[in-house]
């Protein structure tokens, strides 16, 4: 074989001396044989792919073809070779990494005590809510790309938070034979020791589920939802076994209607399973859809207009991921009481005490200002006790942030108790016990307020109980939904507390002391 160059410099091969000439039919026939052998060899992966060819489904029975391929693989014995070589492939693809960071011990929060305080025999049990310092972000392509990157970029804005992201495109919970997420998640949890796991799965999960016993659950069968929910719960339980909370981010609306329908079904199953397992589900559906529930192409955010998704109509664009992550973090920040690294915002500390009156733990978040009170100032405290109707969590513009900002600007703690429902015939007694013997006593022990305590309550049994209580110096019952006006009311109450706070004694001037008072 010789090589010549044309005028343009392009290599032109002269095959006149090529011996022997390749026979066309020998070559084409050999190519078919090779393709068929390899198709049978990789029957598992091939049958997955052909079942995805929906257009073909009307022409030929893809499920039958897939089964026939897998049967042929077993008959000719290629499944042994496939299993051996797949094992080898796993070995070859093991990471060969040096200098990998070792898992660190979790540092306690500044001014904080142990993560979970041991119960005190003399008082109702009190728990300091577990702070979130190690966040593991896992999922398929959206986590490998824009969404995961944005989460990884934004999480370190919280105090002492470390993030590890692991995304693997084209993977799912449904197909452990292709990528075993449970195994990977277990390894990542053992290595990184997260206390919070953020996940986003689903884009590749709307398919047949391969169970551990090797059987498949067809996507078209009614059993699929339950099988998928089991996988979601298994993942959440993996985290829980290592004391990590899990957040599942749902899938968005897709450009293709058919795909959207699949995601709707998957989200429903995922949300039910997540909530059943006591984890947090965050929907991305509303953010990604128009007012009439259709695929949203673009939006305006912070004065900039941009596309929400990449050209495939599936994955988030960087712009879209930024918007979603902002919404997701607002929810996570509030839910887990995270503290941003921002000097203008008070620290948030989740607490809980055991209420014998309610027979369960009652949680509250204490917003503690970073700046120390002026010398001689006796710190006051404002307690917010909402009812389930108070909509305190529905405050516009980030309620968690607003309370942090409020506490910092007031210079004393603000405590927000979870919305409480007392649905017992003895609600009056329970409310009194809860407020006086438990809540106020717990607060007094952990957040003493020599400057006075003010309570703002939503109407309800607790408000009625407070009216009878002689304990608090200032009690305000706020009717209607707690929206923006609440902030002004807290400020007024705080000012009243400060005004009526015991004055520190006048500093005595020692004789002969130099002072800067004008003569």
């Amino acid at each position, binding site marked *: 074989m010789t090589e010549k160059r044309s005028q343009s410099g392009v290599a032109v091969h002269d095959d006149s001396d090529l011996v022997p000439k390749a026979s066309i039919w020998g070559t084409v026939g050999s190519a078919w044989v090779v393709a068929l052998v390899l198709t049978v060899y990789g029957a598992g992966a091939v049958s997955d792919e052909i079942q995805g060819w929906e257009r073909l489904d009307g022409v030929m029975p893809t499920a039958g073809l897939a089964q026939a391929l897998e049967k042929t693989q077993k008959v000719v014995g290629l499944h042994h070779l496939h299993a051996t070589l797949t094992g080898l492939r796993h070995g070859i693809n093991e990471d060969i990494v040096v*200098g990998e*960071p070792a898992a660190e011990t979790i540092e306690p929060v500044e001014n904080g005590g142990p993560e979970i305080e041991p119960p005190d025999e003399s008082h109702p049990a009190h728990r300091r809510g577990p702070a979130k310092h190690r966040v593991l972000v896992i999922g398929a392509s959206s986590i490998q790309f824009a969404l995961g990157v944005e989460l990884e970029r934004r999480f370190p804005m919280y105090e002492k938070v470390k993030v590890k992201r692991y995304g693997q495109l084209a993977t799912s919970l449904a197909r452990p034979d292709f990528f075993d997420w449970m195994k990977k998640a277990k390894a990542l949890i053992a290595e990184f020791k997260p206390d919070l796991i953020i996940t986003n799965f689903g884009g590749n999960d709307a398919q047949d589920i391969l169970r551990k016993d090797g059987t498949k659950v067809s996507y078209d069968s009614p059993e699929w939802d339950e099988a998928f929910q089991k996988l979601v719960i298994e993942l959440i339980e993996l985290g829980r076994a290592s004391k990590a909370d899990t957040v599942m981010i749902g899938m968005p609306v897709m450009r293709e209607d058919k795909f959207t329908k699949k995601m709707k079904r998957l989200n429903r199953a995922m949300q039910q399973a997540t909530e059943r397992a006591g984890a947090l589900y965050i929907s991305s559906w509303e953010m990604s859809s128009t007012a009439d529930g259709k695929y949203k192409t673009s939006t305006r955010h912070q004065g900039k207009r941009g596309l929400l998704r990449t050209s495939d109509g599936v994955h988030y664009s960087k712009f879209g991921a930024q918007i979603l992550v902002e919404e997701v973090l607002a929810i996570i920040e509030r839910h887990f009481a995270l503290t941003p690294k921002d000097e203008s915002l008070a620290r948030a500390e989740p607490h809980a005490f055991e209420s014998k009156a309610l027979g369960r733990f009652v949680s509250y978040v204490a917003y503690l200002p970073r700046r120390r009170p002026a010398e001689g100032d006796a710190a006051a405290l404002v307690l917010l006790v909402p009812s389930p109707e108070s909509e305190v969590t529905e405050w516009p513009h980030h309620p968690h942030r607003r309370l942090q900002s409020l506490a910092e600007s007031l210079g004393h703690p603000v405590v927000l108790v979870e919305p409480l429902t007392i649905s017992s015939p003895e609600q009056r007694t329970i409310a009194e016990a809860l407020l006086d013997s438990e809540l106020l006593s717990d607060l007094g022990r952990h957040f003493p307020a020599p400057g006075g305590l003010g309570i703002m309550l939503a109407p309800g049994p607790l408000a009625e109980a407070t009216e009878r209580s002689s304990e608090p110096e200032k009690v305000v019952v706020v009717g209607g939904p707690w929206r923006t006006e609440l902030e002004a009311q807290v400020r007024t109450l705080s000012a009243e507390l400060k005004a009526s706070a015991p004055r520190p004694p006048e500093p005595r001037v020692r004789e002969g002391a130099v002072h800067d008072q004008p003569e």
Partner: protein
Amino acid sequence: MEFPTLEFVYFGLITLTLSWLLSQTRTVQKSFLLAASYYFAWKWQPVVLATLVGSSLFNYGAGKLILRHHGEKLQKPILVIALLANLGLLGFFKYSGFFVENLGALLSLLRLEVHLPLFELIAPFGISYYTFQSMAYLVDTGRKKAAQPASLLDFLLFLAFFPQFGAGPICRSHDLLPQLAGPAPRHIPELSTAVGLIVTGLLKKMVIASYLALHLTTDAFLAPTSFSSAELLLAAFAYSAQVYLDFSGYTDLARGIGLLFGFRLPENFRYPYAATDIGDFWRRWHITFSTWLREYIYFPLGGSRHGRLRCYLNLMITFVACGLWHGPTWGYIAWGALHGVGLSVYKASLDIRRDMGIDTDAKKPFWWLSLGWLATLSFCSFVRVFFVSADFGVAMDYWRGLFAFNMDGRGFDLGVLFLTLLTLFLNFFGKRFFDGFVGWHERIPARARPLAWVGILLFLLTIRPFGMAATIYFGF
């Protein structure tokens, strides 16, 4: 339909079989190949087929008009209109969003709040390649240098031939049209070369490029702040290796498949990381595109014929256009502009040395070549940070991370280091391996070849990573 997928394998095999079955009647065979190529385009998206067919018919007509009015006053206006129409098509699909976005930003800077419409246009697959191929044909026709299609069918197939229309090589008329006009070959030309190219393409693209992408480069350039300085340093060279392996691997596959159909497609890469200066690099990298830039932008601007400063300016213009061709982002423009600066500096250094009476063509000592190689490779790798980063913010994160000398990362992947070094090594010695493979394949008896092919493919399937990175140049 990406190349190494099951769907593509069976599409290719059916097309190959029928194409050779129909080869007795060349027109029928070419019509079938055109139909298969159009099916391939339609499979990406119907708009891909619509723009391809529309553009092909327009350019065929424009070519005929230019020929008819050759030497007349009308020839130039027809050529200019036809070129503007091609650029308009490309601009509409590829650059309108970028233009509107930046115009909006500019207007708001001037405190003129205008609500411009936001386009969600997806550039049809392959449009950058076949538009440039068409423009080259039109200019060459105007210069009377183009090989002319024997029929409309030949011209349609010249632009649509499925192994190359998605990401090149950008064929010029004399590369492919004479082959289409001739009779069908009686045998598969250079079967061993074809097999060698396909195997090399799979190894480069499916195995090594994917490994580099999945184990380091994708994440490192998405979130550089999570990586140590050493990992970021490796990532720059690993991405250089990846982009070369991915694109040249695709080209090898396209050329190998082309040969199975009896067509020779031009080569696009000639071991670019063996280059010892930046000029040498561009003679080896994406050859059909760099030739296009030289022939249709740099030379018409005057090349080096109008003085040194003008030559440097022409280089800058040519390479900014090169960057912009890749996509409508400031990152690509910066990448192109930096290559323009690099080439201008290199050209100026040659000019100064010649002024000093130094023979720049004389054989260089080994240490000089080694330094030149290291400088060229480093320049190309670091400038690509702008090419690969989603925006300037991410690129700046990369640079800050690189010079932070921080050790806090994910761990140094020795597999990535090994494959990056292997890629560089193969740029020097790859041809020997390739020729050795072709010779070995020639010696295998025809009956034993299927067994050898199965063995090779099983080996590649076993060593490939889990997942395959998308072809980078499909995105342009």
